[in-house]
């Protein structure tokens, strides 16, 4: 961080013989250990080219497989981990799947069990069948959530093809017809050790832990280092649909404004552009903007959030608000974006301090830190370098970037209360 106080986390990295990348973060004095294995494929990976051939997967395959992975030698691995005072969990996102274990006890056995269960596929037609109704119930839980539905619908409005427009859990018919072979095919493609990232945060000596991992990984040589190229369809610059409305059991409308931006093919430049965009968005849509008070005084919204990202394959701003008058909310958000109000020096300085504070807090939070480090590595990036790049941004960079933003392509989604006459 500075000369007097080096980074409070020591980082040890190694690429193993089987191609697995290991990143260990040492937290001296901490009793907890958390280990995460990341797979560079998630709900958006529906087809890839392998050795010149296209391999297709049903929607929801990555997520269904995640549910099935917690088995080892015919046993539920959660009980085995509990023997070692260890808990486990996993999640599937659009482009990655991550499994993790955490414990305050000796971490060697849990770490080895994590490696074993992620790097061993132990499924049968019976286990696949047993999981089906659970996943269908999870799908209904998600469909019940108006926020989640609103986000999904705004992605469906923004994108013609980009997979964020699909439910990660999968379509009902695909879940109903998922087979053991579907899951094996996905596993064989993406779970090779050479494609995996193993991140650990621990109070233990990281060199000792690295040695454990190296020894254990000798049991799992790389099976295939073939390049896998996800099959994607070029995304037009235009939005897929301009307006969309849906009724749900909400009392106050949820409103989403999406703006489709230009992608950035260079991943490093994309990181910097995303940071600049978020600085600008924070200056516009947080209380640092004096309009914010006017918005509250006029009861324009009671809740406001946004996400903004520029990557090589997609780029968008999504603003979400809880607003009694959805059209007034949309009009004002469009107005404020199109005003391109530059970030002031005072706001920029505050945002820089906030950014640094947020980075430091991430270093203290095992869950966030493991996720950030693993997800960056899965994209071939380094969380710490990315953070540095964000903190090195200048005010001029941010404001120059804002001036050249193309904000023309936008769309909106409203989640509205049920029409009592119709229901």
């Amino acid at each position, binding site marked *: 961080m500075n000369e007097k106080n080096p980074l409070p986390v020591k980082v040890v990295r190694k690429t193993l013989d089987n191609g697995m990348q290991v990143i260990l973060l040492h937290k001296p004095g*901490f009793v907890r250990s958390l280990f995460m294995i990341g797979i560079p494929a998630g709900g958006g990976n529906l087809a890839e080219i392998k050795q010149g051939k296209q391999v297709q997967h049903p929607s929801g395959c990555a997520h269904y497989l995640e549910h099935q992975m917690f088995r080892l030698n015919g046993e539920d691995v*959660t009980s085995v981990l*509990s023997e070692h*005072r260890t808990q486990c969990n996993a999640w599937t996102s659009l482009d990655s799947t991550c499994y993790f274990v955490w414990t305050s006890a000796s971490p060697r056995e849990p770490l080895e069990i994590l490696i074993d269960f992620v790097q061993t596929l132990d499924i049968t037609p019976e286990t696949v069948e047993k999981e089906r109704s659970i996943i269908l*119930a999870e799908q209904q839980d998600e469909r*019940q959530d108006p926020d989640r539905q609103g986000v999904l619908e705004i992605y469906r409005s923004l994108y013609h093809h980009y997979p964020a427009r699909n439910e990660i859990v999968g379509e009902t018919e695909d879940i109903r017809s998922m087979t053991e072979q579907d899951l094996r095919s996905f596993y064989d493609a993406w779970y090779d050790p050479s494609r995996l990232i193993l991140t650990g945060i621990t109070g233990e000596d990281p060199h000792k832990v690295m040695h454990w991992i190296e020894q254990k990984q000798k049991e799992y040589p790389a099976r295939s280092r073939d390049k896998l190229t996800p099959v994607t369809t070029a995304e037009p610059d235009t939005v897929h649909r301009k307006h969309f409305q849906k009724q749900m*059991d909400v009392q106050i409308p949820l409103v989403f404004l999406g703006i489709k931006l230009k992608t950035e093919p260079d991943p490093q430049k994309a990181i910097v552009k995303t940071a600049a965009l978020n600085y600008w968005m924070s200056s516009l849509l947080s209380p640092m903007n004096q309009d914010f008070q006017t918005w509250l005084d006029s009861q324009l919204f009671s809740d406001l959030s946004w996400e903004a990202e520029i990557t090589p394959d997609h780029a968008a701003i999504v603003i979400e608000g809880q607003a009694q008058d959805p059209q007034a909310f949309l009009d004002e958000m469009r107005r404020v974006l199109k005003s391109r109000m530059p970030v002031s020096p005072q706001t920029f300085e505050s945002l820089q301090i*906030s950014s640094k504070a947020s980075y430091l*807090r991430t270093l203290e939070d095992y869950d966030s830190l493991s996720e950030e480090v693993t997800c960056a590595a899965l994209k071939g990036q380094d969380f710490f370098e990315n953070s540095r790049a964000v903190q090195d941004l200048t005010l001029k960079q941010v404001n120059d970037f804002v001036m050249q933003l193309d904000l023309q392509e936008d769309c909106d989604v409203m989640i509205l209360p049920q029409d009592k006459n119709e*229901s």
Partner: protein
Amino acid sequence: MEIFENSKFLENVITIRWSLPLNAEDVTAWNLLSSLRGVRSRKYDTLQKWTYACTQAGGFRSRWGISSFGSQLLVTFQAAWLKEKWMNLDHYSQKIVDLLEQTLNEPLLNEDVLEESRFLMREALMYRQSNPGAAAMETALKTCQKDHPVSVNMHGSLEALKTVTLKDLQSLNGLLEKQPCSIYGMGEFDPAVLKFLNGFVQQPPEPLSCFPLQTQEAVRTVIEKPIVQSSMVQTYQSGIVSTDDAYPVLQVLNGLLGACQSSILFDVVREQHGCCYYIGSFVVESCGLLGISVQADAGRLDEIRRLIRQVLEDVSRGEFDPHLLVLVKNELHDQIDSIEDSPRHLINRQFKDKVLQRSLTLEQRHQRIDNVTIEDVKKAASRLHLLSECAVVQEDKKDE
């Protein structure tokens, strides 16, 4: 004031609590007061000024909140800021003291701020009402025993919100300012911060007054809504409260039923019968309430009710894999040890020990869990008595 010097964490954390009698009629007003104390002060009289001041002080974070604890209302203020060595900002300690002074001693209470807070709270309550899980939980707790502190909805109500006046808030604020508080801190504190905190009239937290729930004929509520997935919450009286020596038995029973990763309800209802994605259990320690919460299709709720009954009977007869008890205890042991890595949890543990009038070593905390036997768990399970159930179900799919 209890300050724990600690160099392990990047942040300094303080928690200040005021304990007052819990009065259901005042809960909405206390919520309003908490929300408006956290966003402005006399010096920083706009959201913009307050936000700038917090970011310029290294991303200073603070939060006001209320909760119930037995028959007490706890008003809690928590603040966290990164240690000075990490931020390298000029006059850092003065900025921290200034923000603490403003939010704690110089609240801005006027009609404009009240109306803004009223609007935000009204919409938050309306949003909450749309959530089937929250609605099921609130109704199940409300109906588990009339006039018991656990039946008070600590989020407040839309009806009461309409009638709260500025005078009400000023009156509650006056109460708060006269009331001694308890202060806990963890980190490395600048003398100026300690001097400021020492200026408060303090007293140790009041011992917890537990009110065990009484048995009643179970109150069942069904709410139909135009939703796609149903939620159900059941509440049970256990007869064990957190001041009892037997409290670890309730912790273990809760873990065994649904709060730990290797739990029987999860295994039977989700894994064996595929009835749902989520099922879990929880306890309200000051009154010995054990709750079970599930999200599922309405068409499966009867099957789930039957399975829950069966699980409770099996546990009360000791008809479960005894090794599960070991696994649950392991998870509880891990939770006890993990607290050492969180300044907030460490502070909360100190506070809880004080109100429970106990002083336990780490070893004794583990021992209390280890001492729980299968016989203890059987006995506790056999005494569970259903108090209330609320199911928020899909319209046209009501199964009763």
